[in-house]
């Protein structure tokens, strides 16, 4: 394969026998910040970033909302890292199916797992598999053109009401995409199939439902401000829900974010109109409701028709928890988006803490689950896989700093480069033997140019290629 030969020719001249061979699995912010810091901290290091998708950048590409282009600017910095001559990107390489973890650990001196959290927490309540119930992650991947979800085809025409479970920033994103006039989305990089569906959507009412109160809502001020500013939107926040206890005051005293979010919700509640006018889009912030079961439509078609909620009250202090009161309330809807958190996927040979959904680690050093507390040589973790699926892009900056510091400390104690690792050449040879088509950064740039070109024909910054065949054809 041409790619492989070119790589060999290049790497034999660049790599020396003293090179530290590093593999980073995952090309989102955790992966790229780790690669950047490794390259900087170790002048002899050669870093290969692999990703199961043909396109790099993880959730920056597939998670950040289409109407948040400034948040994606960090791609410029990551691209500069990929262009470093000691760095390579290999897309369409999947940990587990293309190459196993033990193989990677033989081929590289250091392996850093930064593959994030591609699955969802489940509620575990009846009706969760009714049609019309999706995780927010699936919905987000769908409108962002992720090739795994391009066929999702959520039904946005059977109803005028959607219920979003959760009140974090992802919940606000999906609510906002459902409520924004499609004309405003038409000039973003939203996937065409999603734009088309949203243009025909009959959804006019969205409920953002949380188990706890406004003081505990997980969203942040910018996103809240943005959704409250949607033109001609009727916003409903019950005054009663805004009453705060001393435990709430304590929480707000310790957190500037909570305080500012609560203030925004209070202001929105007091300044909103008393009733929506006919046809006006509505956003309801519903607090103190815990989902009990999903209700099936009466024609038994297997489609969701509503959610039964149990009313809650807050107990405890510090991190207050929602306790059920035994009183119930139903809310009708035709679409449910569960935005209750992501979950990482374990991989063969990798220690995994199933209750927390992370790889057990100490400052980024993976620790064995059988030999409790003992670090596994040469294996590290960064990002959501390390600390759980919370935080912003910048959180990974500090996370990567910690993991790279651990790696540097370990390298000082034990010179890993004295043992031979075939690194890039070894990986590419293995992948060629398995007939796996590797997508290089150069190949991604062809995809990138094509997407921008197609986008310019439609007044969009890019028109994403959303199926595997097209992405691998470049």
């Amino acid at each position: 394969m041409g790619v492989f030969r070119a790589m060999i020719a290049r790497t034999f001249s660049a790599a020396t026998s003293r090179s530290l061979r590093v593999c980073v699995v995952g090309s989102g912010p955790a992966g790229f910040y780790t690669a950047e810091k490794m390259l900087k901290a170790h002048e002899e290091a050669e870093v290969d970033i692999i990703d199961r998708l043909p396109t790099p950048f993880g959730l920056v590409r597939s998670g950040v909302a289409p109407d948040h282009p400034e948040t994606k600017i960090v791609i410029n910095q990551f691209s500069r890292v990929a262009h470093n001559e000691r760095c390579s990107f290999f897309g369409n390489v999947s940990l587990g199916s293309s190459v196993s973890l033990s193989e990677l650990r033989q081929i590289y001196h250091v392996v850093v797992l930064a593959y994030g959290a591609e699955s969802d927490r489940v509620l575990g309540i009846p009706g969760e598999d009714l049609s019309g119930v999706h995780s927010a992650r699936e919905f987000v991947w769908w409108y962002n053109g992720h090739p795994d979800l391009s066929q999702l085809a959520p039904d946005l025409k059977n109803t005028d009401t959607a219920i979003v479970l959760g009140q974090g920033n992802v919940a606000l994103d999906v609510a906002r995409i459902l409520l924004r006039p499609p004309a405003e989305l038409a000039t973003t990089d939203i996937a065409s199939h999603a734009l088309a569906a949203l243009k025909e959507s009959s959804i006019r009412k969205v409920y953002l439902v949380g188990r706890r109160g406004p003081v505990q809502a997980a969203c942040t001020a910018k996103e809240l401000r943005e959704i409250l500013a949607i033109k001609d939107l009727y916003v409903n926040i019950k005054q009663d829900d805004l009453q705060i206890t001393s435990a709430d005051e304590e929480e707000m005293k310790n957190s500037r974010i909570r305080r500012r979010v609560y203030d925004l919700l209070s202001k929105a509640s007091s300044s909103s109109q008393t009733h929506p006018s006919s046809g006006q889009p509505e956003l309801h912030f519903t607090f103190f409701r815990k989902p009990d079961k999903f209700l099936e439509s009466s024609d038994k078609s297997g489609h969701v028709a509503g959610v039964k909620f149990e009313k809650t009250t807050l107990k405890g202090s510090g991190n207050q928890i929602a306790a059920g009161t035994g009183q119930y309330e139903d809310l009708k809807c035709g679409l449910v988006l569960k935005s209750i958190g992501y979950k990482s996927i374990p991989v063969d040979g990798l220690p995994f803490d199933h209750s927390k959904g992370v790889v057990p680690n100490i400052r980024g050093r993976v620790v064995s689950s059988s030999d409790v507390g003992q670090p596994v040589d040469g294996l590290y973790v960064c990002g959501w896989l390390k600390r759980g699926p919370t935080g912003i892009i910048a959180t990974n900056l500090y996370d990567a700093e910690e993991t790279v510091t651990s790696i540097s400390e370990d390298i000082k104690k034990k010179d890993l480069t004295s043992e031979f690792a075939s690194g890039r050449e070894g990986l590419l040879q293995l992948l060629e033997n398995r007939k796996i088509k590797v997508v290089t950064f150069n190949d991604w740039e062809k995809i990138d140019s094509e997407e921008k070109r197609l986008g310019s024909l439609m007044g969009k910054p890019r028109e994403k290629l959303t199926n595997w065949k097209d992405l691998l054809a470049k």
Partner: protein
Amino acid sequence: MFISKLSRLGAQAFKGLSKAPLTIRPKRSFFPIVQKDYLEPASCKLFSTTAIGNSQEKEESQKISVTFFDKDGEQEIKVPVGMSMLEAAHENDIELEGACEGSLACSTCHVIVMDVEQYNKLEDPTDEENDMLDLAFGLTETSRLGCQVIAKPELDGLRLALPAATRNFAVDGYKPKPH
């Protein structure tokens, strides 16, 4: 109370000085002059030139002295009036992150103004800047985003500290639960 916080910070910043001479940053850098080849956000002030009238033309060629402190030492640079601290840092190879390149969409260019009087000379942060500061690590009472601090003559001698890399990853300031 925050005076002691600042002096603690200053002490941290100076800790490195006793160990090594002042470091001149190597020319090779991972933060070359930032490029905006993506969209043009209206709020971006990265490349702002002064919008003040002709009578202050001579101020446009004026430069002020700004000193950046981080855990490895300090570096004094000259910044033309009208340039943001983020842009100035990048032009001088100072390692100030700028993920969103000055479009008020991140908090990575967070700097701490070391002197209260200087902090008070800055215009109040907008809601948008405060929204981003909410998420900044090691937030203090004199924290600002480097892309929103624009050099003006009154700020000559400005001292800015880069927040020490912390082990606290929680967005809202809470310590993460142990693994």
